[in-house]
């Protein structure tokens, strides 16, 4: 351990593991440590015994739930957009070869008290009970505009400069009502609040295209995919990448104290009396609590059930987005369900999550509208955690701290943080121009 490294990474959460892998591939000498004796940090997946230890204070889950090791319960549940940035990173790094994926069965949106399938293109818009007959036609026209829109081909722009026109103005041109705007903005473009309405429309149009292209990719009922055995596999896969390229791994290292020189620049990390020198430190907020500030809280309910989420077409894996406006909130609520079909629970069992950014002092009760959609549960756990973001200046102290995971049930914001950190650390932009059009999913 008493060697000199280019980078010491602390914490084996997904963000830290992706960075560790990318930096090792770049030829940097990386030491990666975690205070826990398992991979994944906050983004790990727990078996039943670990789940009971964490939330019930003992390790005796009831026997009727089945074998502990059949469970992989994500602590940060998220789905991957099939054509999204995380998939690009996986293909770019070839970490895909360690993982198996399955498409997610369904993508739904909560609207006027009911759960509806998200219509993602012009054909589905015509069939959706979300809209009345005239609205359907207007929505169809809008979907066709988005599908045909090509940034590099002005003919498809219909005279609109989407870098200037706001989303609100674009939508007004198609005369869509607030209800339609709500599901398009939140369940297709995956905006977390309504600020996008006053921002240039290009971002929203790109997000809608990502959704429909991802949906077309695997002929599943949703644009999402999810790894077999749960998300805990992802940090492990990237950690393996890092190790394959020379990264050194040490789990179960208590303390991990970051050391600084007089100027406040990082010089190394001490654990168990040994100090490893380094030029840079990459870590999650828990390793440098003096360099982060609290920016919010996430409230989450975790339920073990014996049925899928009601009104989701029997989907064995599904996302339901509850847009803020539908609940009178400032930010969206998310339902996430996966099951034995993704090997995260024994046969017949489902794991459902309700997540939201806490907006009150009683976050548990905020989750009620989401929990009410689950139907009866076998067991339910509540988890509330603080979200942090870095406040340091990395050019002065050489510390690169990730932002805590948010309440969304997809990875788009997660990977954005990773890519920004990569650029801060290396001065380079990661080239993710992998050939997605040629990419396919091979049935093994």
């Amino acid at each position: 351990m008493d060697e000199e490294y280019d980078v010491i990474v602390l914490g084996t959460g997904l963000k830290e593991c992706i960075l560790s892998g990318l930096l090792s591939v770049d030829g940097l000498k990386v030491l990666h440590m975690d205070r826990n004796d398992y991979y994944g940090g906050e983004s790990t997946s727990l078996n039943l015994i670990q789940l009971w230890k964490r939330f019930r204070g003992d390790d005796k889950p009831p026997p009727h739930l089945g074998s502990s090791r059949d469970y992989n319960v994500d602590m940060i549940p998220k789905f991957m957009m099939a054509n999204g940035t995380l998939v690009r990173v996986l293909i770019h790094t070839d970490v895909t070869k360690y993982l198996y994926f399955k498409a997610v069965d369904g993508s739904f949106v909560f609207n006027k008290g009911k759960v509806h399938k998200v219509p993602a293109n012009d054909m589905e818009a015509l069939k959706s009970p979300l809209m009345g007959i005239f609205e359907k036609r207007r929505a169809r026209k809008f979907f066709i505009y988005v599908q045909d829109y090509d940034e590099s081909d002005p003919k498809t722009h219909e005279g609109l400069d989407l870098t200037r026109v706001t989303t609100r103005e674009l939508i007004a041109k198609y005369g869509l009502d607030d209800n339609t705007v709500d599901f398009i903005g939140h369940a297709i473009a995956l905006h977390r609040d309504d600020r996008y309405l006053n921002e240039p429309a290009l971002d929203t149009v790109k997000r809608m295209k990502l959704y429909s292209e991802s949906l077309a990719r695997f002929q599943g009922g949703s644009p999402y995919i999810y790894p077999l055995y749960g998300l805990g596999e992802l940090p492990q896969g990237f950690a393996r990448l890092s190790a394959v390229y020379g990264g050194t791994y040490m789990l179960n290292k208590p303390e991990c104290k970051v050391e600084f020189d007089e100027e406040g620049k990082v010089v190394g990390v001490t654990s168990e009396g040994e100090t490893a020198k380094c030029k840079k430190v990459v870590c999650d907020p828990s390793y440098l609590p003096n360099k982060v500030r609290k920016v919010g809280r996430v409230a989450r309910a975790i339920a073990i059930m014996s049925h899928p989420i009601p009104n989701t077409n029997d989907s064995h894996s599904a996302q339901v987005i509850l847009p803020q406006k539908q609940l009178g909130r400032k930010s969206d609520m998310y339902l996430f369900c996966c099951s034995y079909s993704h090997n995260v629970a024994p046969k017949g069992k489902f794991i459902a999550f309700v997540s939201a950014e806490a907006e009150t002092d009683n976050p548990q009760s905020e989750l009620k509208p989401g929990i009410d959609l689950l139907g009866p549960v076998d067991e339910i756990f509540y988890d509330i955690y603080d979200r942090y973001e870095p406040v340091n200046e990395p050019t002065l102290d050489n510390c690169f701290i990730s932002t805590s995971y948010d309440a969304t049930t997809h990875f788009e914001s997660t990977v954005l943080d990773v890519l920004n950190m990569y650029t801060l650390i290396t001065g380079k932009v990661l080239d993710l121009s992998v050939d997605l059009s040629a990419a396919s999913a091979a049935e093994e």
Partner: protein
Amino acid sequence: MAATAGHNNLNAKLVLLGDMGAGKSSLVLRFVKGQFLEFQESTIGAAFFSQTLAVNDATVKFEIWDTAGQERYHSLAPMYYRGAAAAIIVYDITNADSFTRAKKWVQELQKQGNPNMVVALAGNKADLEDKRKVTAEEARVYAEENGLFFMETSAKTAANVNDVFYEIAKRLPRAQPAQKPAGMVLVDRPAEGSRAASCCS
């Protein structure tokens, strides 16, 4: 299914375990590429190989996982063991400690791995007879007691190297319902076979 005629293709994940320096990577390199390097560096850049063997009426495609050095500080991820159909636990016959540690790896495997796994114990560096510290008899008795099959190998001379893999291939259960996940692998080329051959350079 095992006995039925016709073409049987089996995919089997095989993991290597054992102490640093026991010769895990050398065994694979010998088996996959027929090479041996006297001063093989610690595994960097390549820790994923595949090799196909024909055994009786079946072909077995091994996906071989090397530890990539993660064994050094006991940081192998559960993913490493996941779905493995076979394991080779390697020790160095000139190093008694490495044999003691091999027994620890057997325990670890019994804890993490699937119970039907085919496990081989390989006493490597068998060409260094004059430096031997672990007798073949001692290892054979231990292997028998623990349901492993045992061979002494030399990656340097190639002695018994192919034999270990052939023996595993023969012992693999022909039907492996639970071991092959039904999921898909994302590949960057549509053609099948992009996962084949060695790995990154």
